[in-house]
């Protein structure tokens, strides 16, 4: 317990101090993207890591959250409490609509239909011009503000502010995800993956539980989307990018499924690696792909799993 408290204290101090160490705004931008991607990966991890079915459409809920957050921001002058909660709720409701037919499917059907849903959402965003601005997108989204009694207490202006905001969001979702992991819910989600029939026999309604994981995962993505909309001030149908779907899956796989730390680690790697490979210019995506391939082939449980395996090997040799 005290170890955990110390860990969190160190993490908080490090997060608070970061903008003073990383004075370059570009680096701070990357940190913000890590926080946003962490929220996405934590959300998908609930669906894919715990339930065991691969969703390839998690960007749908990011996009829905971004548009919902942006529209609420216009209406409320960027009240961040309304935008995040509103985006989470709307993304969650959308996930129920698609989850109902989709969650009964298994394996490849689940992956492909979720991907298809994302494509549909992208087309809706491009064509429902009155609401979404069409392909031109929505510019000038109000910045995130904490408003109480009509007066703005805090406002997100620069990268430093948004780092604090997105870090707070990611940290809260991480804690929630940890809580899910260690209470009955986490056990249930693993049980469904381990032995479906027995799960039913002990009283678990698989459909309800899967739906719950799906909705919470989507709500996480909704929060990520709304904060992204505040941060960039501009969104377009590109938020539903197919590549983003693949990237979120990649984060969870690279980091390691079914733990809460894995997705965060994965978000760091997937955000930073392409930047670190900038020197390779045109080859950078190629190298990224090859590294991804190597992880899948040689570390099927992700980097976190690799660390655990190596550690136990070293321990065995020492003994």
């Amino acid at each position, binding site marked *: 317990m005290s170890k955990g408290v110390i860990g969190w204290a160190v993490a908080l101090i490090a997060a608070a101090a970061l903008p003073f160490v990383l004075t370059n705004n570009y680096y701070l931008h990357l940190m913000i993207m890590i926080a946003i991607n962490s929220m996405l990966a934590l959300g998908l991890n609930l669906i894919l890591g715990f339930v065991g079915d*691969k969703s390839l459409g998690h960007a749908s809920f990011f996009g829905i959250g971004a548009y919902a957050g942006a529209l609420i921001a216009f209406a409320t002058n960027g009240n961040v409490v309304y935008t995040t909660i509103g985006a989470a709720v709307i993304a969650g409701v959308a996930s129920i609509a*698609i989850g109902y*037919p*989709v969650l*009964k*499917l*298994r*394996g*490849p*059907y689940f*992956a*492909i*239909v979720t*991907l*298809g*849903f994302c*494509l*549909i959402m992208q*087309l*809706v965003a*491009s*064509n429902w011009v009155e609401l979404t601005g069409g392909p031109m997108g929505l510019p000038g989204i109000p910045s995130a503000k904490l408003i109480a009694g009509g007066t703005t207490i805090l406002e997100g202006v620069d990268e430093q502010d948004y780092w604090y905001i997105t870090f707070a969001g990611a940290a809260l979702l991480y804690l929630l995800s940890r809580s899910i992991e260690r209470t009955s819910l986490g056990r249930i989600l693993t049980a469904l993956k381990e032995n479906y029939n027995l799960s039913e026999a002990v009283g678990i309604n698989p459909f309800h539980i899967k739906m719950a994981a799906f909705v919470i995962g989507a709500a996480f993505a909704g929060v990520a989307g709304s904060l992204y909309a505040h941060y960039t001030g501009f969104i377009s149908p590109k938020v539903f990018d*197919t590549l983003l779907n*693949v990237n979120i*899956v*990649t984060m969870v*796989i690279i980091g390691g499924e079914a733990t809460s730390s894995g997705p965060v680690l994965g978000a760091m790697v997937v955000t930073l690696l392409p930047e670190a490979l900038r020197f390779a210019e*045109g*080859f*950078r*995506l*190629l190298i*990224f*792909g*090859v590294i*991804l*391939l190597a992880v*899948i*082939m040689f570390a*099927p449980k992700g980097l976190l799993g690799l660390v655990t395996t190596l550690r136990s090997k070293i321990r065995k040799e020492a003994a």
Partner: protein
Amino acid sequence: MLLFQTISSGIVNGMIYVLLALGLTLTFGIGRVINFAHGEFYMLGAFAAYLVIAHLHLPYIVALFAAAVIIGIIGVVTNRLLILPVQRKESSIWAPFLVTLALMTIFQSLALVAFGPDPYLLPSPFANKPFNIGGINLSQQDLFAVFISLFFSGMLILLLKRTNLGLAMRAVARDTDAACLMGINIQAIKSVTFALGTGMAAVAGVLLIPQAVLDPYVGRMALLKGLAVVILGGLGDVYGAILGGLLLGLAEAFGSVYISVAYKDAIGYLLMIIVLLFRPQGIIGQKTRQG
């Protein structure tokens, strides 16, 4: 007249989608892999044909076959080196799927490095030549694609139903372990399947690209269309792919005329979700197996 035009262009597009879907459905049905790099094989096939035409100055038809062979070989090598090894591991049934996701990035960036992001034109003797029957407008390239698509569908059905190789492939599709006990070389069968699947993706690319432009990003839409078709019809079934392709082609044609062109690309997926609500295994598909 509009009705006939809509129906015929729907069927033409549908048969083209069939071509896209045949390879996908084959690699899923027999190889147990949804090949998310399918679109990339399609794109690489078109580039292979481009190289053959532009640098070797060979005719289009030759380039079509050359592309099929080259990409088929690349497909086999990929399958041997990257997919079969992870399929053998019992632990993660999702590893092959993830490998094809990674391949999607790798092939696309390879093409970007080799050809750059700017569009190319793949010349074809049939391209942009209209073809009129009874007031219905079609292009010669389309008709050629339909002809090839029918040819491949027929050949594939004959191969699966009438040959020993086809019998072995069906045995592997139905029960890998039993097929193995019967002395069938599973890996060889899966390799042949992958060669056929990726080769057909390449053929689809060479046939469809002359109507549009060629760049390293064309694979994505091809993959999305192909997936919609196989899910509509039922994964792993040749007849399902044909039915799914025609259904998608017609639905898109009617949708664009009578509903909205803007949502044309969404129609397939909307249809797919509706179909899956009632028949989770696709219209004539087998029961889903986890994999």
